[in-house]
């Protein structure tokens, strides 16, 4: 069974001023699956991830060429509002970054500004569902009005995932979501990612090769701005085609 393609990148180049950060990348990301981007620091994996919800727009010297299609629609087209796009393509960052607000308000913020709830009862429902999907509801349901910053690091990260899914996105981008977490919190987030893939298309950037192997179905190896190899995760980690991929995943090049 061939899966539907959710995101299709064609010949994407990214420049930061004179620096050519991404060089002619072609990647097709499957719907309802987890795709991992791996590669050494500075290889362009985070840059490419940030192209998918136009986070790079906020950087003046950044220039993106080529096509990135979300469900066949060019996300860099003039008609696309980046704020609306980011509601469809949510993002979770390396460091948990809850707003300095209550747990409830952290999750309610997105749906409120996007007008997703008609009344308080609907908003309550969205908050509960989002926190349940983020596998943190049971831990916070009795203290929804306490500050989100008072939670542990792992809980904060799951709160941020809950916040990201509150706007009912189709795609979740995660930029090293576990790098600031301990192994238990990491395992909880990984378990969550595995559950989320039933409802969302997840793209994760990770420096942990083991994490990529554990959570993803497809892996892309970035090196010096190129996608060297892109394929099924089990193939990449047992028998990669390209010698550079092999060298990287076996710890021979950094």
């Amino acid at each position, binding site marked *: 069974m061939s899966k539907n393609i959710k995101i299709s990148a064609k010949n994407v180049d990214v420049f930061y001023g004179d620096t050519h950060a991404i060089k002619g990348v072609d990647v097709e990301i499957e719907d309802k699956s987890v795709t991992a981007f791996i590669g050494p620091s500075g290889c362009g994996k985070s840059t490419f991830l940030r192209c998918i919800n136009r986070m790079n727009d906020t950087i003046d010297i950044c220039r993106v060429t080529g096509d990135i299609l979300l469900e066949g629609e060019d996300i860099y087209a003039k008609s696309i509002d980046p704020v609306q796009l980011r509601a469809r393509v949510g993002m979770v960052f390396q460091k948990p970054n809850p707003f300095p607000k209550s747990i409830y308000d952290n999750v309610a913020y997105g749906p409120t500004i996007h007008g997703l709830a008609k009344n308080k009862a609907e908003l309550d429902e969205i908050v509960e569902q989002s926190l349940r999907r983020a596998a943190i509801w049971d831990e916070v349901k009795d203290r929804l009005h306490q500050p989100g910053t008072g939670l542990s690091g792992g809980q904060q990260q799951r709160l941020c995932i809950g916040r990201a899914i509150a706007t009912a996105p189709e795609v979740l981008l995660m930029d090293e979501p576990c790098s600031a977490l301990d192994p238990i919190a990491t395992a909880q987030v990984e378990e969550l990612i595995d559950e989320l893939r039933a409802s969302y298309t997840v793209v994760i950037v990770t420096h942990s*090769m*083991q994490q990529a*192997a554990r959570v993803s179905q497809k892996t892309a190896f970035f090196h010096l701005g190129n996608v060297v190899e892109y394929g099924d995760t089990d193939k990449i*980690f*047992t*028998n*990669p085609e390209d*010698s550079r*991929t*092999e*060298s990287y*995943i*076996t*710890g*021979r*090049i*950094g």
Partner: protein
Amino acid sequence: MMDQGHIASAFDRDLDAVQALIMKMGGLVETAISDAARALEMRDTELGEQVRQNDKLIDELEEQVASEVARVIAMRSPAAGDLRTVLSVLKISGNLERMGDYAKNLGKRTAVLSEMPAITGTGGALRRMTQLVNLMLKDALDAYIQRDLELAINVRQRDADVDQMYNALFREFLTHMMEDPRNITACMHLHFIAKNVERMGDHVTSICEQVIYLVTGEMPDEDRTKTDRTSTDSTLGKV
């Protein structure tokens, strides 16, 4: 790519160490096979007994390989070629251990056979068959260390010669047993020996398949010609 060392150089030392154990095992098995064959031919029960004793060393090495591999997997999480290396090491050590057991069994039967009248002609044939297997083993281990795909494929094909020699011996034993029923006991022992040497050839073939897997990432297809027909061809029993 594989000649480039790991950033963590201790990982290279671990992999080298476990592969050195395989080569040591291989050396002991080669010696066991040639000693066992010589003991049989010369009716040297002392040498046969020595082969039996030395098998303990081979068994110990296999255990050592298994625990080293477990340690490397736990500590280093090997991937891709490294993963195939440790997996193949584990399988090859199993193959070598079985070959050692067959050599030991040959040593055991030497003691029994030396009490019986010799069956003319079969000693030389068994020795040639054993030499063939030993040469295959040596080449298979060379192919392993050199990651030499061509050599591995070549050795794998050569197992057909061993099978053919076994078929010929099978017929010969039948002839001897029909000629004189007093030969039956000795021929039964000799037949077990021949069968065991033929099995050694299969283990060498399996080592070659591990080399092919290690180099290409894929197990070879089952396109090798099978020429041990004794279990399927009833005409082999008609003499």
